[in-house]
């Protein structure tokens, strides 16, 4: 039984001819003695043969080349965007949104300043300056 367990462990490698000589000798001897392991081996061999005997498709020369060169996107060798991962790409709009918000804030602040009437402007306009008006203009600054 112990031998069977060892053989089972080595069988796959033996099938692929990847077992060291010592292990291969052991398997060969065991397979000639044990019917269960021998059946297991023939089952695995059948599977291997089925897979390796599968028909392979052969494409015409330049088949993929033609497909590639008719693609519009093809031809661009490398862009900075390609170096980014999918996560970085999904976060790409974040700095743009921050920049847009900052710009909107600055513009709105400038507009506020444009509407303001400062004390200096009033004095320069040579109008009558009362204490009440001066205080009001200072406090609203």
């Amino acid at each position, binding site marked *: 039984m112990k031998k069977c367990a060892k053989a089972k462990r080595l069988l796959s490698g033996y099938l692929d001819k990847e077992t060291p000589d010592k292990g291969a000798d052991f398997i060969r001897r065991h397979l000639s003695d044990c019917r269960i392991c021998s059946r297991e081996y023939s089952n695995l061999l059948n*599977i291997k043969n089925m897979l390796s005997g599968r028909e392979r498709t052969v494409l015409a020369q330049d088949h993929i080349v033609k497909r590639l060169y008719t693609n519009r996107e093809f031809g661009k060798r490398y862009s900075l965007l390609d170096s980014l991962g999918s996560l970085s790409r999904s976060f790409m709009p974040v700095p743009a949104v921050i920049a847009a918000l900052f710009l909107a804030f600055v513009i709105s602040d400038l507009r506020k300043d444009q509407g303001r009437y400062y004390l200096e402007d009033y004095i320069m306009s040579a109008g009558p300056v009362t204490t009440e008006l001066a205080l009001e203009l200072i406090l609203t600054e």
Partner: protein
Amino acid sequence: MKSEINEDIFYVQQFIGGEEQGFKMLVNKYQNNLLNLAYSLTGYCHESEDIVQEVFFKVYRNLKFFKQRCRFSTWLYRITVNTSYDFLRRKRIFKSREGSLVDEIADNRNNPREKLLEKQREDLLNRALSKVPFKYRAALIFKDIEGLSYVRIARVLHCRIGTVESRIYRARQILKKELLKHKEDII
């Protein structure tokens, strides 16, 4: 083998130097290998061509970053495995589908009985393969269909040789279990 590696390096250098011909040569050299690999990994026929196209698309864009720490074909296989995995994840179906490559293969045969049997066998194999988890399936396909050594499979799949061995073993066990359910249809 060595001349084959040198040939790949020559084409890669040619492409990096600005000659498209180098890239075209690489595509023609590997298109069939990658198509069969993508088909075995996904079980989808027509989509396999799209996968191969996507692989070469990625290669075209990133070839100048290929460091040549491994063989070009190893790098190509790795991209194919990743692209196939992404494709299956997008599809959310890890099963093979009807209308497979078998239809095209079988059409070349004249004998209708032979055609039908071949189609049945291939469908069963595809269905059984789809039951094998992707990691195990990839290792098994590289060994049994592409005929790579354990060392190369380990390089392609970025894992240890022991891991490759156990993945292949497990894949075979699952495949055997699935195929034995339909023993009389296959053998």
